[in-house]
């Protein structure tokens, strides 16, 4: 098991290397002055220009520059955001927990709901139930989450006034304890609903296909022949075996969400990583752009690692595989 973990972790390193090199090269491909490309569209005082040239070794060969940049990143130095007058790392560390909160709550609701719907569709004796959810999933999957978000804001926030239209909380909050939690939930509700419906329906689709596949396996026939009840078969055989593909897909999706649900955060002005990225792009704050992309790549890679481990725990065959 430990060897398995080690091998997967080793596999992640070249992946991260490629991403850092790719991003750095992209900065270099921007036509014009490299210092300006790093800093963004801001006036650069000569002293700062010199500091940047030295720090990023801009007069050295390209490979030296890449190596130097890598060394900086490894030490947690993602550069300085001229726009925000702060280090990029501090910006990321401030924003990341908010994105994690949004993604975790959304997936926390979407996974059980999606699984339930998927199992219900896969095992139901009523074709109507299956048809209803299959059609719903098909349509829900075609709705762009950001548009669903706009519709929710217009209906639930602006027309009915049930929820705030944007943000993560009020400017000044006087509530404490349970009331504070409730207040936060009101801000979370709409983005979580938009995100959760999309992901939940995706999970339901995968779960349904997986359940149908599992039900056709020989051991289910055996279990039936042994006289096991319907509920018992679903609980002890179908659930575990059908969850395998789900772990992979949901895990990857979660990893990508940690990298910033860019569109969703834009609709709800949710001040997470995605919004940081979009703002940085609009303001040409390139150092921040690169920093966020590298950070989200790390999130994806780490999540993939977690998925591999979960998979190994659920499926003993993988552990022993060379």
């Amino acid at each position, binding site marked *: 098991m430990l060897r398995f973990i080690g091998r997967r972790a080793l596999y992640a390193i070249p*992946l991260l290397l*490629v*991403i850092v090199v*790719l*991003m750095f090269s*992209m*900065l270099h*491909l*921007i036509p014009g002055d490299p210092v300006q490309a790093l800093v963004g569209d801001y006036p650069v005082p000569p002293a700062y220009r010199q500091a940047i040239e030295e720090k990023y070794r801009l007069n050295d060969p390209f490979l030296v520059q890449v190596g130097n940049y890598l060394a900086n990143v490894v030490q947690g130095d993602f550069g300085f955001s001229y726009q925000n007058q702060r280090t990029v790392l501090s910006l990321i560390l401030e924003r990341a927990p908010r994105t994690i909160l949004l993604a975790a709550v959304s997936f926390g609701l979407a996974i059980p709901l999606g699984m339930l719907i998927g199992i219900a569709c896969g095992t139901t004796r009523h074709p109507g139930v299956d048809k209803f959810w299959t059609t719903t999933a*098909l*349509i829900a*999957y*075609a*709705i*762009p989450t*950001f*548009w669903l978000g*706009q*519709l929710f*804001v*217009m209906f639930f926030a*602006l027309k009915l006034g049930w929820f705030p*239209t944007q943000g993560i909380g009020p400017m000044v909050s006087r509530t404490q304890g349970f009331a504070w939690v409730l207040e936060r939930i009101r801000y979370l509700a709409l983005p979580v609903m938009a995100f959760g419906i999309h992901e939940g329906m*995706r999970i339901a*689709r*995968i779960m349904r*296909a*997986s359940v*149908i*596949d599992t039900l056709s396996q020989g051991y289910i026939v055996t279990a039936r022949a042994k006289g096991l009840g319907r509920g018992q078969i679903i609980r002890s055989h179908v659930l575990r075996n059908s969850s395998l*593909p789900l772990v992979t*897909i949901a895990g990857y999706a979660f990893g*990508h969400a940690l*990298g*910033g649900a*860019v*569109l969703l955060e*834009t*609709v709800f002005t949710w001040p997470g990583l995605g919004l940081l*990225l*979009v703002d940085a*792009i*609009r303001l040409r704050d*390139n150092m921040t*752009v*690169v920093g*966020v*992309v590298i950070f*989200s*790549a790390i999130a*994806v*890679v780490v999540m*993939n690692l977690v998925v591999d481990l979960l998979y190994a725990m659920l499926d003993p065959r993988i552990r022993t595989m060379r």
Partner: protein
Amino acid sequence: MSETTLTAHAARLMRTRHGSIGAVILIAMALIAVFAGLLAPYAPLQQTAESLAEPSAAYLFGTDNIGRDIFSLVVHGARSSLLVGLGAALAALLVGGTVGIVAGYFQGPVEAVLMRIVELFQTLPVIILVLCAVALFGSSFWLLIAAVALAIWPMEARLVYGQYLKLRDRDFIAAARVADLSTAHIMFREILPNALQPVIVQVALDASIAILIEAGLGFLGLSDPDMVSWGRLLFVAQDYMDSAWWMSLFPGAAICLTVVGLNLFADGLNEVIDPRGSAGAGGLQ
């Protein structure tokens, strides 16, 4: 595929419930895109007398903040959305297909290297990379297609690769080798026709994903500013959510309808190609 089998396939497709609905939606959308100039009462960028007018007989979908007719904009937007969707799906087919064919046909180091690259692209947060590429280099129509294709080609590569893997050890390929046919002949004339069917389904699904990505880029204000696109209309609508619901509702519904159409069409194709439905579940993985 000869003319008659193509018609036969089309006829069978139209007999499937999903396939027929999907095909009708897609044909309607294509007609709207082609005849946009005739259907739209106003030129897309023409300003009417009223801004932020509610939907009415004069302005079917209302007007936007600078008085442009939303109905005309949505109709013209079909062009860019369909073009980018189809263009990116075909570009992804070309790149992913080639990589898949080469990796699937040759065993050994070529296969290993190519499939590692595909895996790499699948693990990258590609959407974010696409976003950066467009942001850093500006957006034109062709760059948009290239960027979206960049995000979806690995799916195509994996599928084609899987097909080639399945076919390369079959008897008829061994026979072709014995007959001393050229590698290119075996790759493209012997294997390709047999590998094509699931690929066609994937192209339809790719196009739907491409349309969603293009809409997302437009929504962030990163699409070509000179082109009318549904995503871009939603970008503008974001600032008028409190006063003009119609600015958001109609362009979004158009995206939704097109994507549903493509997915239904793919479902129908799947049913025709593989009536047992075993390939069907893999569509969105």
